[in-house]
């Protein structure tokens, strides 16, 4: 898995709540990563086994199509944790303290 700034941003969001499941748009919104980059990345993370996916249950759907949820696996927690840690060590200022959402919203791409 190629270590990109986008991957680091998504990793940070996933690791903020490692036991929570996220859906694509939520990840895109919080991390500020564009949809066109995020979804293929999620596909690759699933392929390497760092994420697992599951469909939303019928009872929580509220009339819309079921969401696809993504959750970190144990392996993902280790690998993405190492990537995030590496990024923090290499450039402590690389990740702004403020949520990166601001940037994505500013460009209208979240």
């Amino acid at each position, binding site marked *: 898995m190629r270590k990109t700034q986008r991957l680091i941003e998504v990793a940070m969001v996933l690791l903020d709540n490692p036991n929570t499941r996220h*859906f*694509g748009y939520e990840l895109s919104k919080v991390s500020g990563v564009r949809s066109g*980059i995020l979804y293929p990345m999620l*596909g690759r993370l699933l392929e390497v086994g760092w994420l697992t996916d599951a469909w939303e249950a019928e009872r929580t759907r509220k009339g819309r199509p079921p969401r696809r949820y993504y959750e970190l696996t144990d392996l993902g927690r280790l690998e993405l944790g190492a990537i995030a840690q590496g990024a923090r060590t290499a450039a402590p200022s690389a990740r702004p303290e403020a949520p990166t959402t601001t940037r994505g919203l500013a460009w209208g791409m979240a």
Partner: protein
Amino acid sequence: MSELIELASTPAGISTLLIAVLVFGTIPELLLQLAVHLYPPDHPRRQDLLADMEDVELWKRPFWVGSLVVMAPFEAFPIRRRARRDRTRSLEAPAEDLFGPRVPNDTASDAAKAESTTVADRGVGTDIVTVVDVPGAVHLTARATLTVGGPAPDASDNGVTWGDIQRDGTKWGEVEKHTWEDPQGRDVDRGYFEP
């Protein structure tokens, strides 16, 4: 409010409103529907993107969809190409590879279901399943044709034997069909190989 209504009722106002509806409503939805059709019919990305769009704020939709429309061909075509390659390969594979291990009944674990083979996925159709022999292969030396009887899958057909696999002219194994609903409410139709 009355000023807004007045503004919207002028020709320029009406056309602006119409353009806004198109740009933020109809066009993104239409484009996304087209984009998801680039993926193979059973690919989860289709449902994934359509469901997520429901959560995207109206004003963000053109940008969100625009980014996806640019990305979709680059992701979808390799997936389709890979699926086509796998299909060709599967038609040349021994029966054990075409159909997963038999799952005893419909209460099979999700893991076991995931390991089994979706016949339709492999592109061998839902009517006729043909297992082609591979010259020199030790697994299957005779051509076997499995005929799937009956109309569309039905839960009541669970456990029905689809057909026999012949080896050297004698029955060597059979394929059982099991059907259940996937999370999107579609019937999933799978065959299990039973030697």
